[in-house]
């Protein structure tokens, strides 16, 4: 039976879904803290494994920081749609008269604020700990800000594709890592350029282009993938 209630505008739908998901994230602060702790602990492993030589750590630090950020995003993206899938609200969203791409994008945005964005904010701290020269800190911040948008969207796509698969975790990394490679290359190259006194702007521009491109393409793919997962 068709409902008498008028349809909401897409903007209102996005906002409501964003707030709903944001509130559910707030109820479990551990889920917000865990990726940051993971980031911190894996960063700690590198000086232990590579030796404490500050000069060597400084040259390796752009790559280390970026790789660990990628791993952290990989770790959290597995759970992105999990709770919504298990309690059936994803099914309700798919039945709702609104494009799944918009509602999924709202969830991914809330998720990014709680994970990728926070990780970006604390990254200069870890950069300093690894001896990243000061010239690289701002570029690290900007590159991670743009890069985590791509990482989160690609991770969400992988999560949407594997949500209905038992033991999908390893499969998720196989699906996501190749797609993340350009992001990693642009991000680390930007930071390295900045450290060496070069001009990181072109690499940051490429990262920005990737972020905007994935903001356009990824929600459609995520919506389609969620429908596949719900149908299977």
């Amino acid at each position: 039976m068709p409902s008498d209630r008028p349809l909401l505008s897409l903007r209102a739908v996005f906002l409501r879904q964003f707030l709903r998901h944001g509130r559910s994230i707030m109820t479990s602060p551990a889920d917000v803290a865990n990726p940051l702790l993971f980031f911190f602990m894996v960063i700690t492993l590198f000086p232990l494994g590579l030796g404490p030589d500050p000069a060597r750590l400084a040259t390796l630090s752009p790559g280390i920081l970026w790789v660990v950020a990628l791993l952290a995003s990989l770790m959290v993206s597995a759970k992105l749609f999990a709770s919504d899938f298990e309690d059936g609200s994803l099914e309700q969203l798919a039945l709702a008269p609104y494009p799944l791409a918009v509602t999924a994008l709202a969830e991914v945005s809330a998720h990014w604020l709680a994970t990728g964005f926070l990780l970006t904010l604390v990254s200069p701290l870890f950069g300093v700990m690894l001896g990243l020269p000061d010239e690289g800190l701002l570029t690290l911040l900007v590159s991670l800000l743009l890069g985590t948008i791509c990482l989160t969207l690609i991770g969400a796509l992988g999560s949407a594709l594997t949500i209905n698969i038992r033991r999908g975790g390893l499969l998720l990394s196989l699906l996501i890592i190749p797609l993340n490679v350009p992001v990693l290359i642009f991000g680390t190259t930007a930071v390295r350029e900045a450290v060496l006194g070069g001009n990181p702007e072109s690499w940051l521009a490429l990262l920005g282009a990737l972020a905007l491109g994935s903001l356009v393409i990824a929600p459609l793919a995520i919506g389609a993938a969620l429908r596949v997962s719900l149908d299977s």
Partner: protein
Amino acid sequence: MAPVGALLRAVRRYNTSMWTFIHKLGSPPWFFGFSGSLVRWLLPITVTLLLVGAIWGLLVAPPDFRQGNSYRIIYIHVPAAVVALAGYYVMAFAGAVSLIWRIRMADVTMRAAAPVGAILTAIALVTGAIWGKPTWGTWWVWDARITSMLILLFLYLGVVALFEAYENKTAAARACAVLSLVGTVNIPIIYKSVDWWYSLHQPASIKFTGESAIDASMLYPLLLMIVAFYCLFVLALLLNMRAELVWTHRESGWLKQLVGDT
């Protein structure tokens, strides 16, 4: 006005026959018969091309001025790499067709193309490593093009693994179609990577515009081998698809009838 009318009729007739052909391709029994006759033609052609290209490239073509005979692995390495990249487009295009029009044969095409492409990519990587040892003095270099071929291998393996992970094969095909379409976005970056992160690997030798860096006596067998590998890809794809069809339709009447007939 008579010629115009005749032209329009001809166009319409051509149009209908083309669409009939495309619709027929979507029917498993028809495709099975059609691909059977195609394979009968393609098999001798592929074998001949491969033999002629291999003998020409390995025995007749002159040795390289600097690399001697070791360069001859180019006749396997380059065709495998070229066709491996093209194979991804075949897979992604079939995936798009399957997503948009829900044609089962497109699913079968996509599913059959993934392992063939993965094997070709692996061949390109292994021959590249073998070639790298005498030329660069090392088996593996983290060079842009080698790395992007490795990523291509991961992309192929991801599609294969995702398909295997789903129990519902219709959903599996749609999930793989989404994944391979997204992966397609990466392929231009893989191509562009040659220009962006150029390092040890030599730049592409065959240029269709301007002077080619490779001599004609070495180029012709190489082009022949590339054509041969394309034929090999299509042949492997068709055989793979036929095997898949036999398996999924093992209970169908048309297949039993076909088997009973021969």
